[in-house]
């Protein structure tokens, strides 16, 4: 539901970076998103492509997303485990963990682009 607002944040950063790097055309924006954010990738991609179509330097640009699994560490078992349905409970000893290992990432990592030719 909020994927459009998130796409807007990404769009604004990329537009700013396109100016900074004198980009002629942005091809790909690389993202790293943890599963804890519950982002629907299809909605995010659709929203971004819609916004990109309004800006010539972003025409045809698309997102490349690395999804990071939601994992926690159990101090009692000294082992990582997958967090299912946001329940941060060790499947072995059933104690709750407060140490999240991965899954909260929310980053614009890089962008790939064609540079504008020098005058």
């Amino acid at each position: 539901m909020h994927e459009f607002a998130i796409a807007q944040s990404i769009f604004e950063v990329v537009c700013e970076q396109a100016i900074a790097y004198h980009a002629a055309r942005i091809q790909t924006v690389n993202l790293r998103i943890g599963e804890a954010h519950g982002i629907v990738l299809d909605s995010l991609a659709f929203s971004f492509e819609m916004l990109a179509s309004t800006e010539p330097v972003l025409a045809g640009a698309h997102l490349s997303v690395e999804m990071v699994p939601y994992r926690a560490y159990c101090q009692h078992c000294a082992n990582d485990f997958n967090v299912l349905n946001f329940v941060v409970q060790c499947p072995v000893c059933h104690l709750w963990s407060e140490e999240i290992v991965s899954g909260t990432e929310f980053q614009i990592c890089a962008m790939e682009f064609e540079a504008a030719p020098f005058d």
Partner: protein
Amino acid sequence: MAKVTIARNILAANDACASELHEYLRLHGLYTLNLMGTPGAGKTSLLECTVQSLGAELGVAVIEGDIETSVDAERIEQAGARAMQINTRGACHLEAHMVRDALAELDLTATRLLFIENVGNLVCPAEWDLGEDCRVVVVSTTEGDDKPAKYPQMFACAQAMVLNKLDLLPYVSYDPTRVKHYALAVNPRLRIFEISCRTGVGLDAWCQWVRTLVTSAPTLERGLL
């Protein structure tokens, strides 16, 4: 084709604004709660009750967030607190820049407690930091008792949950034990308050908790560090 590293959080702009807001609110001696929950759960009713109980003692102001209308801000003003309405005109959640703009219009004289009533929504508000000190999610007995399982991120990010409309329990098939079980599964530290804004049951415990949050927060002289 060139590739450059950006390495920026997607919501960095919002987070920077939220961080400035947090600093501003603390400098002005305010404790801020972000009140979230389903449309119709009773967020505004809870604020009306809280204003009536704590307004004279603490000085309460409210920033109201809705897609349209100023109905909720008017209710808060009727209850006796200053309110500023944000109309998002379609956005399903509040963002830090909206709160910043609303604060510029809100008289915070003699105010120690600020509530931000977020847009009714159990999904999107969880993602946006508004500079608050504490997050509370409001649900009610007229919804499903499996809400924390269906919308876990909202309950995982909150410090407290208020279960409202206890007075309607005899008329609905709602199991308070079940909703608490689901809520604590995603957030074992969640404080839970069971109340009825209509009858007043449970409101003393809620108000006492809020009072303690405000009075035990680090105090700063207004305008001075």
